[in-house]
């Protein structure tokens, strides 16, 4: 259903096309940049798996975690150091990188370094953030707020378009069901894809139980493979998962990050299912069952 292709990657990193019938792309890395050595180690480890499976990927890690529940939680290494580390990841591994930004004044620097800029879910309708993201002229990974209906994400797209940026990827990351609980509505993918933009599934945030552990979030990681299979079969273009080599010691989202040892397993399944999905699409065409707007 989505026809627009978003191209990610500038300079000498790998160029990636997202959307349409292009292969499934993976976005992953530790939730937060913890330090240089860890970031490089994780990038190397993920690259090895993606190379083996022949999956194009984008390294994701954030320099500032502005939405922590507790003031004592790790807040990040900061924009200057963080972007320096992301630049090194780009340079060494020739992989595109993405970080989010939570303050409009951080957008320009983030866009100078990152191949893709991420708008956090909680801020997905903030005009000042969207204006700043659009101004970077980089592709934008727009998270769907946990409080947003999929159809209302069109309003955020229209804001970005009005600011001159039409390189948008819409990301599902779970929807609040009451307090401290998220559910995934699989109809959100075709609804968001009807904007024409590629759609992404954030599997590790979707299994989050927001702030369920008092002052931090819990999660149900055991459901990651089930939800990934459902989302990929549904027709997503991009799969997002935060990954860590030692989740118990992760400085951010330790209850939701995927253990690195399971990454190959999940990506293998995702790639296979995406190929089947494309085969079905080529055989039967777009779904057109009981169309409401024939």
């Amino acid at each position, binding site marked *: 259903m989505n026809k627009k292709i978003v191209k990610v990657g500038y300079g000498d990193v790998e160029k990636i096309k997202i959307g349409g019938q292009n292969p499934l792309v993976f976005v992953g890395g530790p939730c937060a940049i913890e330090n240089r050595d860890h970031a490089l180690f994780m990038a190397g480890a993920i690259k090895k798996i993606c190379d083996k499976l022949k999956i194009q990927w984008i390294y994701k890690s954030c320099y500032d975690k502005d939405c922590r529940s507790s003031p004592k939680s790790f807040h990040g290494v900061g924009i200057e150091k963080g972007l320096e580390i992301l630049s090194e990841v780009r340079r060494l591994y020739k992989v595109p990188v993405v970080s989010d930004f939570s303050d409009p004044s951080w957008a320009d620097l983030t866009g100078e370094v990152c191949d893709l800029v991420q708008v956090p879910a909680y801020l997905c309708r903030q005009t000042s953030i969207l204006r700043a993201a659009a101004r970077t002229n980089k592709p934008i990974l727009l998270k769907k707020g946990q409080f947003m*209906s999929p*159809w*209302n994400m*069109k*309003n955020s797209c*229209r804001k970005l378009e009005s600011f001159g940026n039409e390189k948008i990827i819409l990301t599902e990351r779970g929807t609040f069901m009451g307090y401290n609980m998220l559910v995934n509505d699989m109809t959100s993918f075709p*609804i968001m894809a009807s904007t024409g933009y590629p759609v992404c599934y954030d599997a590790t945030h979707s299994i989050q139980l927001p702030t369920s552990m008092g002052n931090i979030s819990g999660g149900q990681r055991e459901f990651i493979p089930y939800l990934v299979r459902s989302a990929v079969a549904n027709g997503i273009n991009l799969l997002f998962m935060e990954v860590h080599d030692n989740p118990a010691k992760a400085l951010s989202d330790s209850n939701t990050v995927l253990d690195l040892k399971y990454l190959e397993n999940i990506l293998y399944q995702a790639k296979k299912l995406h190929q089947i999905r494309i085969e079905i699409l080529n055989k039967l065409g777009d779904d057109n069952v009981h169309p*409401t*707007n024939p």
Partner: protein
Amino acid sequence: MTVNDVMIPFGDFPVVSKKMILKEALTEMDMANLGLVCIINDKKELIGIITDGDLRRKLLKVQKPFSSFLVDDVLIHSKRDPVTCSSNDDLKYVVEKMGRIQIWDLPVLDNEKKLIGLLHLHPAVKKLLE
């Protein structure tokens, strides 16, 4: 007597761009107190219309949540090939045609298919009865 003598000029009836959502189109219709909105492209060419009747039929057919319906692009719920007329057309002939096909409003296009006006049935009939 021609359509030009009685048509509502462009700017005085509801017109929206194809990027607008249904809610915005309804607001335009409501403000003008007319049962129709015209949708145009960047060249001012008419690309669709929505009437009160179209909306009634859609509401009965489209069973998605109302908030979702309102955020749909106006164009997807529009009639893409509406009946139109020219400003030089004979008014009596056009009014009779509107009666035959039972419509209250008729978009008026120029030679380049650009929207220049709207013929509303009530003032047209009033003019003919004068």
